């Protein structure tokens, strides 16, 4: 294998998109655990204290998964985690929309209550669905161009 096939390049783009967004989103939030906790609590889906812990953990999970995806390391595992995150976000935002909550998704910091005319649920859901699709592509076909997986494990990784 000396030349990247088109599907490998599609995989590379999917990896960089999903991984890059996760890395940035997590990175913007790691310095403010309280803000992240409040953002998660704003969705009002979990017990208050559980949401607090999820809020503390989420930025770090995003950073680690994002980094693995950008590097192309353990692509199938990390894309599974990335996809699950996106699905969870879509569900969370959708329920907020359906219940008439007026919150910022807090995806890149921020979060919490906003005015009713400031919500951007549609756009946020579309973005996260797109990223989830990137994840699904990688889940089905984790072989991508310029990945650490291939560098470290060779082509064998393709079959796992």
């Amino acid at each position: 294998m000396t030349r990247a096939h088109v599907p490998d390049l599609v995989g590379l783009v999917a990896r960089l998109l999903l991984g890059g967004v996760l890395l940035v989103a997590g990175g913007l939030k790691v310095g403010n655990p309280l803000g992240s906790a409040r953002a998660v609590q704003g969705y009002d889906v979990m017990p208050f204290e559980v949401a607090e812990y999820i809020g503390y953990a989420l930025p770090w999970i995003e950073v680690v998964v994002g980094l693995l995806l950008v590097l192309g390391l353990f692509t199938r595992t990390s894309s599974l985690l990335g996809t699950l995150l996106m699905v969870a976000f879509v569900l969370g935002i959708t329920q907020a929309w359906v219940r008439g909550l007026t919150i910022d998704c807090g995806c890149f910091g921020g979060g919490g209550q906003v005015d009713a005319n400031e919500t951007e649920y549609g756009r946020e859901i579309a973005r996260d669905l797109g990223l989830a699709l990137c994840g699904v592509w990688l889940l089905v076909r984790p072989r991508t161009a310029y990945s650490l997986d291939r560098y470290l494990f060779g082509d064998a990784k393709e079959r796992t």
Partner: protein
Amino acid sequence: MSNQDRKAKARAAAPSTGKGANAAIIGGVVVIVAIVLVVGAVVVGAVRDGGGASELPQGVAAGEPLEPYADADPPKDAPVVDVYEDFRCPACQVYEEYLGGTVTELARDGKIRLRIHLKTVIDSMTGGESSAIAGSSAVCALDQGVWTEYHEALFALQPESEDRTGFAEEAYTKAAEQAGLSGEALDEWQQCTDDGTYVDYVQGVDDATTEDGIRATPTVVVDGTRFDWSSVIDQQTGEVDTKTLTEILTSGDVPEDMVATQ
């Protein structure tokens, strides 16, 4: 390439392929375990335990508000006025500047039961703990009997911009001196503030009030009804309708057009 060569090559390749597959699966599991461990450690570290001295204000339970003017001994049926505020929030400074004096006076006279909930809304926006530390320092001032003066002085020293740093360390001491603390009392207050004695308490109040649905500051609740406090300020002249304000607070009845919607 002869047939035999091909077979030999296939044999040589097969085991390594199997190893690769195992390595990837094991690697995946290792990655998940590593993520769980790292994130777990970070979360344990992030939990707001403040560290150092952690105390509750005298006679106040965790998550409960302060009653700086409990000594005025308001009658049992006095209206309860709940104020939710953050020393770093600009709108709180406006509230304090325009209405603070009247509210304080009514509380001092025992006409209302004033309950102060110190929140950390700006901390949750900027990161850091400046709002919580500022709140803690105010409780330290309450311990020294200069709540009113310190409260006013610290609000006046509010940092211009909302950032992670928040109040400069010197601002607290300056406010304490302006509040009239000196000598031993000032030392005690300083120690109390430096220890972050009530940081945990303030953060606990923010948790409790947020869970109760009070997310923004300043919020003023009169006998259970949210009061749109800005409605008693004339938007043109900036004059406060003190008469109406006093009537609302002392009766506990918020007119319908002055109920805050949120």
